[in-house]
């Protein structure tokens, strides 16, 4: 990464920013100048925007809000493509958007009112249809009043009868259940008793259904008829509003979308100018970019904006090392694994990029855990499909590439363990596992997993040692080296108890451990023994490779056994397919999580220093 300073004539600032944005390599960083202080280069001050640029920014900010609001109100439709140049038409668009926004807001308000009325009317219709079935034949007779009530709780029906009975001296109350499950009641009474009855209902908290004013005074059948007619009118008006909104969207959405994208880009440029400095005649930009791209950017800027443009590479100061942005750059095979490294906070610029090590060990651990040629083959096909179909989606494609590497290791370890959909392959071929049978070789598998753990942790400690040497931290480097040697000796001593051949190394290893122990205490302090104990715990944690793998192979074994015990061939096949599919889904998730954990917790903790800044160059969004 290089620290660069770009200077040029002040009137060229926005075009230069556009060129830099198009090249997508420079991360503008005003803090590098702030750190240097005013004494470093006197006469350079933060850029003060001129009146014209400020007015343009305010105008565009206001227009952006209006267009965003309009697009929010317009329905999403297949709009006409716009070929209008936004830069030229922006003033006309400002006039037009005010008119369209007013129309769209009026439509939205009217739609909201109609929808509220329609919802209320639907409820009245349910009520009216229900009580019509309750009304007596002489419902149109003068002198009678009908009171409709809604009963929210069926238990309140009894209360309704009691209230009506106390007011009307035993008059019958008719109730019915509506289509939507709610209960309605119809009370029929003489007009002179109606007010008294309503008062009684209010006192008992039984709500009367209040119909809109235009239905008041009409006989019950007429009320239903008028309400239905009104509903039809509302629905027609709503449909007409939707049609108008769709027409507006088809005609203008494309153009407004286009203008909005241009404005966002233009505003981003104008905002970037807040991180720019100036002298009396020039603008000055400070930033970071990959060293390999400096010459290319210099050439492009001089070609497009003349010889007055100056791109200068500055020395990175020691106190700036923590602020240098970090870009992960790896060979093509390792590049997809950056996805797994990016899940964690960015490592510091001075730290070692762990991606290549993840690229080597992650698929290895995955393969060791799943270790089934049949599953590996299916995963290989799935990964190949994912890579082919997700060409445009970078993250998915990278996930497919990781899965592809994992599936290859799964096939290799499957061949070593002699597993093809569990023990099915070995049974069909009538052969034993070529290397070891995971179901029975529990102790050898534990030793194998621990041995892999020792190697992985030692690699982590070696990287930590290298990192300390690079950072000129001698004491820390010595502590890490002694930790590494102590762990190696400890592993050797323990191995000598399990492997007869290794018995010869026990004594020398113990002697070496006695020599290393004081060095470890002197360089690592009193906590050094606990640190060593933590490394031992980390190594034991690798037994999970064996444990999760054992669970996977036993599930496959059970799937085959259950399929065999099914009685019918077809049922057996279905059972086997279902159980193997389930095991395969588990077989993708469990090894991924465990392999990731072994990297994040056991491996990265040995050498990674987090707290770095991610490299985010100014680039044009698509």
């Amino acid at each position, binding site marked *: 990464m290089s620290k660069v300073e770009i200077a040029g004539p002040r009137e060229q600032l926005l075009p230069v920013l556009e060129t830099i944005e198009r090249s997508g390599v420079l991360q503008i960083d005003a803090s590098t100048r702030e750190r240097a202080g005013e004494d470093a280069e006197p006469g350079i001050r933060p850029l003060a925007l001129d009146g014209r640029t400020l007015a343009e920014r305010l105008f565009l900010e206001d227009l952006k809000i209006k267009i965003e609001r309009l697009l929010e109100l317009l329905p999403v439709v297949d709009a006409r493509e716009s070929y209008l140049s936004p830069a030229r038409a922006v003033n006309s668009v400002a006039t037009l958007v005010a008119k369209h926004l007013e129309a769209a807001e009026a439509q939205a308000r009217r739609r909201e009112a109609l929808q509220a009325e329609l919802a209320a009317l639907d409820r009245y219709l349910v009520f009216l249809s229900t009580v019509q079935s309750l009304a007596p034949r002489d419902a149109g007779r003068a002198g009678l009043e009908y009171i409709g009530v809604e009963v929210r709780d069926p238990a309140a029906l009894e209360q309704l009868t009691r209230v009506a009975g106390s007011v009307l001296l035993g008059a019958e109350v008719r109730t019915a259940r509506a289509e939507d499950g709610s209960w309605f009641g119809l009370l029929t009474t003489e007009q002179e008793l109606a007010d008294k009855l309503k008062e009684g209902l209010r006192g008992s908290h039984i709500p009367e259904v209040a119909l809109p004013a235009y239905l008041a005074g009409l006989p019950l059948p007429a009320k239903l008829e008028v309400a239905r007619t009104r509903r039809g009118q509302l629905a027609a008006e709503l449909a007409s509003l939707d049609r108008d909104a769709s027409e507006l969207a088809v005609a203008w959405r494309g153009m407004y979308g286009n203008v909005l994208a241009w404005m966002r880009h233009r505003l981003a440029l104008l905002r970037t100018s807040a991180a720019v400095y100036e002298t009396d005649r020039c603008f000055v930009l400070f930033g970071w970019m990959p060293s390999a791209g400096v010459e290319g950017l210099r050439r492009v800027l001089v070609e497009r904006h003349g010889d007055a443009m100056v791109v200068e590479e500055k020395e990175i100061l020691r106190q700036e090392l923590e602020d240098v942005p970090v870009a992960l750059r790896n060979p093509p095979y390792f590049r997809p694994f950056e996805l797994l490294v990016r*899940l*964690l906070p960015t490592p510091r610029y001075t730290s070692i990029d762990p991606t290549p090590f993840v690229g080597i060990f992650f698929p290895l651990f995955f393969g060791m855990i799943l270790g089934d040629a049949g599953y590996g083959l299916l995963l290989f096909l799935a990964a190949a499909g994912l890579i082919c179909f997700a060409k445009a989606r970078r993250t998915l494609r990278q996930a497919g590439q990781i899965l592809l590497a994992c599936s290859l290791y799964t096939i290799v370890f499957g061949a070593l363990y002699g597993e093809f959909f569990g023990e099915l392959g070995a049974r069909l071929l009538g052969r034993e596992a070529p290397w070891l049978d995971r179901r029975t070789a*529990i*102790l050898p598998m*534990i030793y194998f997993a621990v041995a892999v753990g020792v190697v992985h942790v030692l690699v982590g400690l070696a990287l930590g040692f290298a990192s300390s040497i690079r950072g000129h931290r001698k004491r820390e480097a010595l502590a890490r080296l002694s930790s590494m040697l102590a762990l190696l000796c400890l592993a050797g001593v323990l191995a000598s108890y399990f492997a007869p051949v290794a018995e010869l190394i026990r004594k020398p290893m113990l002697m070496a451990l006695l020599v290393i122990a004081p060095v470890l205490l002197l360089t690592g302090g009193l906590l050094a023994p606990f640190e060593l104990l933590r490394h031992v*715990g980390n190594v*034991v*944690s690798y*037994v*999970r490779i064996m*444990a999760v793998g054992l669970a996977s192979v036993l599930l496959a074994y059970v799937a085959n056994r259950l399929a065999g015990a099914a009685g019918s061939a077809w049922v057996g096949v279905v059972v086997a397919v279902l159980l193997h599919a389930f095991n395969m889904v588990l077989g993708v998730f469990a090894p991924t*999580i*465990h392999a*990731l*954990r072994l990297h*994040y*917790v056991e491996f990265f903790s040995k050498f990674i220093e987090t707290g770095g800044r991610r490299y985010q160059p100014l680039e044009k969004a698509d």
Partner: protein
Amino acid sequence: MDAVLNWDKVLMAFAAALALGVSALATAWVQSRIGASGAGALAEKPELTATIIILLAIPETIVILGFVIAAMILLG
């Protein structure tokens, strides 16, 4: 039929089951606490996904150690 009860084997099996069972329960309890807090944290800060996965995976070492002890009791 004179079936002789081999108490050594019974005790070994019991000890192995205890080593694995208790450590599994401990892991489950810790993971339930971390999982609940992690889900809350994720709702507010989705960028913490990797950290939560790490925190959730850390107590698994307890059950792995339990498994190793159980294997050593039975097979060692």
